[in-house]
């Protein structure tokens, strides 16, 4: 099994962390986006969209959360991805929320900074991120993890995105439930590796000539 992986990318880290949680051996091929290694003819043959992560398990699978659910399904892992339809649907709902309601906004904030040299998070993007975090904070009022009282794929996916947000804004503002959940996730295998992968965001802002105002 091969994983085409970029440590700085939250979706890529989510797949890697899922592999660690499932104790699956994988050959990691690192792809450097800033060097354009995802735009080479060879890589585009593997994934025409030029996106990472990509899993090669005898067939090519893209889209991080589809890869995560594929891995959990293939191992029939009840904890990470329960088979009960209602429990499973909540995990799916969180995964889609991460994809379309959370990650999309931090991606919109960071990509222009990495690839186009912009120096601020626009007020619109900041507002969208805050609203998304408020929604997640609310979920954690009544439960320990995002799909219940046990950690699932939902937490892995959201963790990768939240650590990216944390490293961009220098913290998680006043979102106390999120902060507690963030620490709680350290029981998951691959947690430290996930945080290390997000270090490059911290380093980017340490070297930058501009600062990002913290989340309130």
């Amino acid at each position, binding site marked *: 099994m091969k994983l085409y992986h970029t440590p700085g990318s939250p979706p890529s880290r989510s797949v890697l962390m899922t592999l660690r949680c499932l104790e699956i051996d994988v050959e990691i091929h690192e792809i450097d986006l800033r060097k354009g290694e995802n735009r080479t003819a060879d890589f585009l043959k593997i994934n*025409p*969209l030029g996106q990472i992560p990509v899993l090669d398990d005898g*067939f090519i*699978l*893209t*889209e*991080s*959360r*589809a*890869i995560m*659910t*594929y891995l959990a*399904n*293939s191992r029939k892992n009840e904890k990470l991805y329960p088979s009960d*339809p*209602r429990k*499973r*649907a*909540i995990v*799916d*709902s969180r*995964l*889609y*929320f991460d*994809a*379309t*309601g959370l990650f*999309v906004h931090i991606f919109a904030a960071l990509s222009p900074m990495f690839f186009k040299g912009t120096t601020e998070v626009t007020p619109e993007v900041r507002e969208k991120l805050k609203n998304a975090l408020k*929604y997640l904070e*609310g979920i954690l009022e009544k439960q320990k993890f995002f799909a219940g009282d046990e950690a699932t794929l939902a937490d892995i996916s959201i963790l990768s995105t939240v650590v990216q947000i944390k490293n961009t804004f220098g913290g998680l503002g006043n979102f106390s439930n999120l902060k507690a959940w963030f620490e709680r996730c350290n029981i998951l295998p691959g947690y430290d590796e996930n945080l290390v992968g997000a270090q490059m965001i911290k380093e980017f802002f340490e070297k930058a000539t501009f600062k990002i105002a913290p989340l309130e």
Partner: protein
Amino acid sequence: MSSKLVLYYLSGSMPSRACMLLARLLNLNFEIKQVNIPNNEQFNEDFVKLNPAKKIPVLVDGDYVLSESRAILAYLVNSRSPGSNLYPTDPKQRGIVDQRLYYDATVFLPNMLAVIRPIVVEKKTEISPTLQKPIEESLEMIERYLNEYEYVAASHLTIADISMLPSVTTAREFGFNLTKYPRLNKWHHKLETLPGFDENLYGSKTNAAYLRKMVNGPIFNF
């Protein structure tokens, strides 16, 4: 076990229409409750209590509440028609369906919404011509998927087709010429026989008509 199914819905919303199409295909007994997004009904206190994310569609199944259209699609098959080919249980086959669903959620639908949102939500009166190419690229991607299988994710209909259909119909109503994509065109024609397609078409035509009215002209100059 039959609990009361309620779908919070807007005919102008492609993800809402996908859930409606699947519920009709599965012959489910369900009630539709309209949430008028242009009138900001998603901010009504009762709706926010139901879905703090303030989005539609939302499925209510007895005492169970679920948001995110593609989670709803998967849930309806998993709970009402387990083992159905609409959402295969084989991990690899399901993985391919899921990949198409996430492509739809993170690339195709956003390309469509980039055209719709500024007009419907932000009340702008111009559509940027740069928004045309991303939609064409998405239609080309679906054409590529249909090169692999007869339907977008398999040799048979799955929830991936159902998820993407409303956006393809809407693209056609926006003026995109589907005959440029022969497989896609054939696929869309096949799906016109799905129960609920009329409602899907009505929603698409309404989307297109509203946009044309607001920009006082065509959506794109093809």
